[in-house]
């Protein structure tokens, strides 16, 4: 064998050199190198803004008719076709402009963060999905354009009405963060709640239970037939709040949720929270939750549910599109507001969480800010909105546009649930104000542990209160309040 160990002369051996440089290189790459590489631009001026076009009746935002437009869409549960269709309308409205540059991705943050940082963001972004950019940080760092001109522009269908007046209630407020400017336009309108198959309930000869006693009785009945009552996205337990938060509001009134959102001291110690936690914990304790659920992700749990192994799942209205592949034809998908606890509840049955989804933003440093807003104006028109609803079975922020299209079962039940809820729609804001607190701390480390049976409700409450207190005291987290 030849000498493998380099040179006897004591110098730095070839292998040592390779080892050391390999060590350095390997650390650099994943850990720090790529991060700082993207800060390199410093205050990169970005591309110059395009000049504003002439404001006319047909062009109320003053879009430059020859400027390029770049749109980035989150390619998730809703796909991208609806956006492509709306971009065609933009092309038709501004024939002199180059074709709209369209890109769909699931990696919103990894693709766009460097561009924000370098000052060259695209003109319109659907900032959604697991890699959503933190909106609080974007607003705090003045990276977003104020969409007020868009809201005050006439709607594309009716020059007599402002865009703002065509939107569903709550959409404008959701786009604000302390103060008048509107930074975000939520395009989809999501109904959250307890989703089930009406066929499955029929087979059990049951109605959707309106009180918790009825819920437990139904779960017991299902259990005897080998069907679990509930399943949920065990690996993403922040789906549980979709039915748990309105349940809390129903028991204790909407002020409970507002004080939670406001990070008030002891907000989680309200008796309504404890009561709701105990009710859910009982599902676990009595074996009404599908076995193995804490190890399932959202798709796996939805599949178990569409296959009829569990009756109920907390989810949002995107589930109809997302689970379409495994959902049997006669599933008769239905959403219901959460069951209440008992007759002493403060809010009536029907209290529902519904709010904007798919947040669209126009970056402040975009080259064609007016173009980005105009594209949104087109999307908020009746025709595009209807197209979205037809394609992806979800409502949009545009109030209406569901007449005359054959509504799918889930969508129809969503509309009915909204009608039934009337004024009793709640809109907890933790998930857009404090992403980490909601998803990782309350969701995974609190609710997830409790529903896996590893924390009692009392322990879960005090743990979650601890997380909320820490967030409230953390100066690096920007705070928001309900007004």
């Amino acid at each position, binding site marked *: 064998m030849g000498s493998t160990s380099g040179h006897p002369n004591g110098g730095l051996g070839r292998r040592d050199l390779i080892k050391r440089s390999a060590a350095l290189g390997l650390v650099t790459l994943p850990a720090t190198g790529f991060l700082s590489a993207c800060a390199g631009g410093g205050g990169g001026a970005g591309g110059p803004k395009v000049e504003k076009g002439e404001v006319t009746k047909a062009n109320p935002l003053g879009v430059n008719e020859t400027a390029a437009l770049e749109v980035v869409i989150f390619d998730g549960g809703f796909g991208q076709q609806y956006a492509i269709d709306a971009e065609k309308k933009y092309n038709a409205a501004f024939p002199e402009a180059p074709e709209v540059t369209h890109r769909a991705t699931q990696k919103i943050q990894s693709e766009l963060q460097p561009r924000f940082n370098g000052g060259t963001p695209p003109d319109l972004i659907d900032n959604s999905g697991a890699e959503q950019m933190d909106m609080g940080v974007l607003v705090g760092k003045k990276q977003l354009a104020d969409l007020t001109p868009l809201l005050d522009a006439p709607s594309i269908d009716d020059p007599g009405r402002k865009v703002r007046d065509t939107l569903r209630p709550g959409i404008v407020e959701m786009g604000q963060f302390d103060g008048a400017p509107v930074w975000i336009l939520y395009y989809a309108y999501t109904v959250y709640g307890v989703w089930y198959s009406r066929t499955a309930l029929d087979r059990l000869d049951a109605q959707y239970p309106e009180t918790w006693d009825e819920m437990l009785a139904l779960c017991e009945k299902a259990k005897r037939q080998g069907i679990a009552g509930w399943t949920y996205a065990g690996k993403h337990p922040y789906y549980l709040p979709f039915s748990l938060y309105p349940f809390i509001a129903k028991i204790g009134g909407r002020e409970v949720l507002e004080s939670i959102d406001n990070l008030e001291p002891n907000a989680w110690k309200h008796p309504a929270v404890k009561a709701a936690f105990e009710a859910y914990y009982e599902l676990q304790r009595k074996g009404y939750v599908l076995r193995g659920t804490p*190890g399932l992700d959202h798709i796996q749990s939805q599949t178990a549910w569409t296959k009829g192994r569990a009756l109920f799942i907390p989810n949002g209205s995107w589930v109809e599109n997302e689970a379409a592949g495994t959902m049997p034809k006669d599933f008769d998908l239905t959403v219901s507001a959460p069951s209440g606890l008992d007759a002493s509840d403060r809010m009536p049955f029907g209290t529902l969480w519904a709010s904007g989804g798919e947040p669209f933003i126009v970056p402040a440093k975009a080259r064609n800010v007016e173009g980005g807003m105009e594209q949104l104006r087109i999307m908020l028109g009746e025709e595009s909105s209807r197209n979205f609803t037809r394609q992806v079975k979800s409502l949009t922020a545009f109030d209406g546009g569901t007449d005359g299209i054959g509504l799918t079962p889930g969508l129809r039940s969503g509309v009915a649930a909204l009608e039934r809820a009337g004024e009793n729609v709640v809109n907890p804001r933790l998930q857009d104000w404090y992403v980490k607190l909601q998803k990782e701390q309350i969701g995974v480390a609190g609710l997830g542990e409790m529903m896996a049976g590893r924390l009692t409700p009392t322990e879960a409450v005090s743990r979650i209160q601890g997380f909320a207190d820490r967030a409230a005291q953390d100066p690096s987290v920007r705070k928001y309040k309900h007004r």
Partner: protein
Amino acid sequence: MQHGKYRFIAGFLAAPLGLYALFVVWPFVQSIYYSFTDWTGLSPDFSVVGLDNYARLWDDDVFWTSLRHSLLFALLLPVLTIGLALFFAFMINVGGRPRRGAAVSGVRGSSFYKVAYFFPQVLSIAIVALLFQFAYNPESGAINSGLRAIGLGGVQPLWLGDPDLALWCVMAVLVWSTVGFFVVLFSAGMASIPRDFYEAALLDGAGRITTFFRITLPLLRDTIQSGWVYMGILALGAESFAVVQIMTTGPGGPDYSTTVLVLYVYQSAFRDGAAAYATTIGVALLVVTLAFAAVVMRLGRRERLEY
């Protein structure tokens, strides 16, 4: 002709050194600088905040948890992987029964094993992680289904959903996917150990175990040491990130049971909009990695062996 020699050497060194400084040294300097700022990563404006990020790091429970997990990875994974790989490589190359014509040979079918062990190496770690994620599915995954099939329906662990098991599940995947590389590496090392050593040992009546500990292991020492450092860095860096990010709850859970430093860097930078804090964690990771490499190098120091 001595004059101009240094200029000549410097001329050759300038370009590579410049590249090295630009692409290796400079990012380090930058990262360390950013760890003293409040940069968000979403905007180019930031200001210097001194040691704030380090103070925050000190009080951050999640940081300490992920540090503990990363250290566990760095210490345990090399032991497991290299131990297994050594065993496999020895069996493939010299562990077989003596056969006619060859004093030293591997077990029957060794060339097949070599390919089989190396096979996971061909798959990207992301695919491996996805495959095992399905296997670990407690409801319909291969492992629990297998348990049911052999009549162990009562034993249905949650695997990745159980904070006591999740970390070990992740480690097992990493061992599975990297052991093949080291089998090949050590096979190459063993192939270059002179055959007469083994023949002599055989004539002296040494068994397999003695041969391994008296001949193979000492002569492979350098290779093992390199492998050790390599595996440790892999365990601290990219590979552990990929499996934890793809496979586990949250990710990093349940209940922070699998968070590792690299994942925490990623989450701080790309979820929480706290890029400066992420570089601070990155600096901590750098220190850990360098310390690991230094310790292994120091422990492995000894007289050079010539043969």
